[in-house]
């Protein structure tokens, strides 16, 4: 799931649950998650990052 899709779903769920303040917090969490997903320790099924992982 892309982060954008996750945030849209999460925000809609927060409003559905009548927690509008939570929607703002979720935007902050999304920024933090974006940083986490960009970290160079993350590999993927393409195998393109395996060399980087071994060199760490």
């Amino acid at each position, binding site marked *: *799931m892309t982060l954008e899709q*996750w945030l849209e779903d*999460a925000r809609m*769920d*927060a409003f559905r649950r009548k*927690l509008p*303040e*939570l929607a703002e*917090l*979720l935007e902050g*969490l999304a920024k*933090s*998650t974006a*940083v*986490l*997903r960009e*970290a160079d*320790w*993350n590999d993927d099924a393409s195998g393109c990052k395996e060399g980087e992982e071994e060199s*760490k």
Partner: protein
Amino acid sequence: MADQPTIADLAPRIARGEIRSEKLTEDALAAIAKLNPQLNAFITVTADQALASARHADKEIAAGRSRGPLHGIPISLKDLIDMEGVPTTAASRLRAHHIARRDAPVTARLREAGAVLVGKTNLHEFAFGTTTEDSGWGPARNPFDATRSAGGSSSGSAIAVKTGMSIASVGTDTGGSIRIPAAACGVVGLKPEWEEISSAGVVPLSRQLDHVGPITRSVEDAALMFDVMRGKPAAATETTTLWGKRFAVLGGYFLDRLDEHVESNVLAAIERLRNAGATINEATLPHAAYVAPVYLHLVLADAAAYHATMLHERSAAYTPNVRLRLEMGRYVLAEDYVRALRGRAVLTREIELALDGVDALLLPALAIPAPPLGAAAVPVKGGQEPVRSAMLRCTQPFNLSGHPAISLPCGSTPTGLPVGLQIAGRRRGTSDLLRLARAVEAALAPPA
């Protein structure tokens, strides 16, 4: 604020019968009665039990049956830790009617060592915050300036130790919750290595990051408490010299966004260690910028799992801000949790590398002085820094890695707010860290 006697000062005098535990306990209870209405450090005061324990301790000591340095010493517990027959509220109205069925192991060990338990201290609700603004019993207030936070989450413990409401206390630390209030209140806070002190009978925030440890008036007292809390006989810490000791200052992320007075005090303290014969090098954690997101994803999801049922059934019983933060954790995806677990391993390896060839790491404990209650952000170097991230940035790494770390006072701002220096040591080296910290404390002491 006048210096208060330490356990190490009092223990020999108690053992010789020069001071009675009952008198010490009465003094602590009088301090609570006088100061707690303003500072809000205690949720429950166990006055009758404490006085009975103190009288019993006096009888044992008079009969020649001393149990060691903690015998007869008034001690408080963060209200996250079970004490038989007393509520463990976790500062939440959700648990107002809870009664602990038995002592947590750490409580039982303190009792066995003869400590007198005077009560349960205030905290950020469920230990989920650094300011103690969100407590079901109201905010705890800084003893140096009651308009400011005393840090958190173990704020009541640090206030109690600083002001004479107890001589030492037991706190917990998931992202800095012992070291942050210790720095904000001008006392010593030790986060031992992970699980070196049992966290059984302690309400969890994140079981993989939670640590139990002492808050005290000196490093020597921290060592005495640490021994008892881990089930060993309390023994005096050997002193050591700083001559030839090797430190690495953790730079970059940890020094870039410091309040100017915190920075000047910490750098001056490091210079004093150099002048005392220590070698000071520099080190960095290449992935330091990821500490906060890694920590956030782990602690949010762990806390949400523990609170899921109560969030569903009794959400209105939480304070609003803590409830929202717990709700946020329910949206963390499993895949991001796994990314955070991998990041934790990377950061742990980098801390190990930073410790390679040195005795300990040096950095501030708290990047800002105690913030005003209610502040969302504070000014740092011409910009605005969110309070929560500013308070956690220097302490979180050692919760992720499990390395032992201690905060001790190293000066104050021009307005008199304390500043804390943090020393982080090797795994399986908490006693070595305490010996080193005692030498640092001596080097930083004002000239007699």
